[in-house]
């Protein structure tokens, strides 16, 4: 069984509107998957539902992480089991520095891993790892002592999302349009970060509009997502076809919630 298995997943808004309309997807360790789809097709909704956002209701189907159905778990418990979401729009937490936030997050995961016993990461070890990851992702030193996402530029937010991913070392990383808002150098650095992480311990699901990031993160599988469903699947060549022909060739009318 794959590390992440999504079976016939249906997701609705609190008012009952169905957004994700039956998705099947398997992501295994060592694999890179791309989900490509037009604006408003429900990609972020899928990502939020995977992570357990309370505003998105799973009305049918299963989300299996390492064989366990996590659809009823809180976001914290999903994270502790190795799921990570890089947000399309990360939130600001005024007054909490990137460093202290990262340390708390790591400690929360370590505590869960040791059955609820406190097991804080030794400060020197944390510092070494943080500095190495920041160096690798070219995150400016001063960002570590700024308040999380507070007043960050779009690109800084995205880089710090990837920094969090690198520090938390998830089993499955979902990246929701991490490429948007990045300049070309940043894109390359972020893509390298993803490539470095994916391996025997980690698989990734990269959500994007554009081919652009896929030039650097070569996906093993591409899924075309239109109006809440996967409408086509293939290898990297599918992304090129999309870039050339647009989503309309796959039945999108170009404005989300298309005909059903």
């Amino acid at each position, binding site marked *: 069984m794959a590390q992440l298995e999504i079976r016939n997943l249906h997701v609705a808004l609190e008012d009952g509107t169905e957004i994700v309309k039956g998705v099947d997807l398997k992501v295994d360790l060592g694999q890179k998957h791309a989900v490509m789809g037009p604006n408003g097709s429900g990609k972020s909704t899928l990502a939020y539902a995977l*992570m*357990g*956002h*309370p*505003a998105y209701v799973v009305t049918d189907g299963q989300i299996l992480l390492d064989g366990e159905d996590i659809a009823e778990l*809180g*976001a*914290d418990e*999903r*994270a*502790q089991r190795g799921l*990570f*979401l890089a*947000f399309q729009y*990360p*939130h600001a*937490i*005024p*007054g*909490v520095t990137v460093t202290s*936030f990262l340390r*708390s*997050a790591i400690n*929360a*995961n370590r505590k*869960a891993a040791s059955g609820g016993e406190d097991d804080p990461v030794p400060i020197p070890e944390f510092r070494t790892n943080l500095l190495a990851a920041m160096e690798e992702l070219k995150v400016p030193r001063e960002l570590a002592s700024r*308040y999380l996402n507070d007043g960050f530029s779009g690109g800084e937010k995205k880089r710090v999302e990837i920094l*969090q991913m690198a520090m*938390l070392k998830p089993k499955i990383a979902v990246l929701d349009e991490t490429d948007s808002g990045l300049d070309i150098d940043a894109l390359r650095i972020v893509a390298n970060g993803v490539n470095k992480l994916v391996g025997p311990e980690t698989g990734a699901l990269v959500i994007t509009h554009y081919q652009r990031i896929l030039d650097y993160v070569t996906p093993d599988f591409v899924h075309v997502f239109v109006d809440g469903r996967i409408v086509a699947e293939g290898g990297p060549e599918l992304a090129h076809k999309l870039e050339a022909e647009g989503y309309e060739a796959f039945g999108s009318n170009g404005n989300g919630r298309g005909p059903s």
Partner: protein
Amino acid sequence: MSSTHETDVVRGIRSDYKYGFSNPDDAKDYFFKSGRGISHEVVEAISEHKGEPEWMRQFRHKSLDYFLARPMPSWGADLSGIDFENIYYYIRPTEKQADSWEDLPPDIKDTWDKLGIPEAEKKYLAGVGAQYESEVVYHKLQADLEAKGVLFLDMDSGLREHEDIVKQYMGTIIPQNDNKFAALNSAVWSGGSFIYVPPGVRVEMPLQAYFRINAENMGQFERTLIIVDEDAYVHYVEGCTAPIYSSDSLHSAVVEIVVKPRGRCRYTTIQNWSNNVYNLVTKRAVAYEDATMEWVDGNLGSKVTMKYPAIWLMGERAHGEVLSIAFGGKGQHQDAGGKVVHVAPRTSSVITSKSISKDGGRAGYRGLLQVAKGAVGSKSKVVCDALILDEESRSDTYPYIQVDESDVELGHEATVSKIGEEQLFYLMSRGLSEAEASAMIVSGFVEPITKELPLEYAVEMNRLIQLQMEGSVG
């Protein structure tokens, strides 16, 4: 007795209140204990027991008359639960004050050990005073500061050894009839700190006083007077705790501060009384030319707190700052705030208030900013932010402003917010529990104030907030 206490602890409002221990057996060991209730006889007994000069004896009796004549305040928090007849106004736990922890009776020493105070003294304090019930039982100042002429005594010793200074200042910053509770304090005061910092002397490490109420229905009325002379500096910190009892205790202090030209005084409070204490404190400072006065006021515990640290900016370019945190949890009402009066030209002030309410608690800001005619070119900024954690809780903001001078620059900002679902989800998606995520957001909210604290106190403040947050989740 011991089993009653056990039940009380279990029933305690905050079951994890770390300072909730008490020493149930020591009541019989008190050196001196007045009966319950307040009267001229009690005042006379206190004054006589202390062997005070005649003027102080009269000051006390006069103050009691004021107290009895004044009605209870009809604004602020609900004080109807205070039963003045049921309170012990004076308890002296030991015969002599100690200057070594070892010299204290074991039960009292044990209390301070549990609070970690001897440890803190070794690590980062220039001087320590420890008050248990009505009297300061331990006092110590670093020898080099003593040599420089710094005075750091308990108030009773201050009166005995420096009567001239005490007589000159006591009751001049806060008149004995200022308000009902200042009058009560003036009548029955005992303990507190007396500090004098000579011209040009900078006390680099904090002086700290710890106030501990141990007996049930105890009234603690310490009186503090701080004189910071020209170009001098001191940071004074007070911490307060009490055990959890089923019936209430009263803490009603008076703090008077004088900061002379170019001097600077910072007064930090970490108030963490148990949730059966009425905390009604009057604090006021005067700052002369180019002097700076800063109140940093963290109110986390108590049942009711009414406290509005005040600064009178008397000399040109004097600067005043009030930083206030109020956390109102279940059954608590924190009516906190600040007051600044600009008397002299080109004075400046900043009031920053952060209030948090949770589990049906109330926390708020009540402030007065006053600019007198002639205080030209004065500047003031008031920022009060409230964070309300659930539907049952409440926050109130009363920012009174009274300006009699036109050439001034005033700013006022107020925000009320809730913890956003999106922020919580974001933090939880990184593995933090809901309580941890909320605590992190709250710590971030008060960060503009905690970052002003020395590291040890910032850590303590964050830990207390965490405890409050975990307190009654679910």
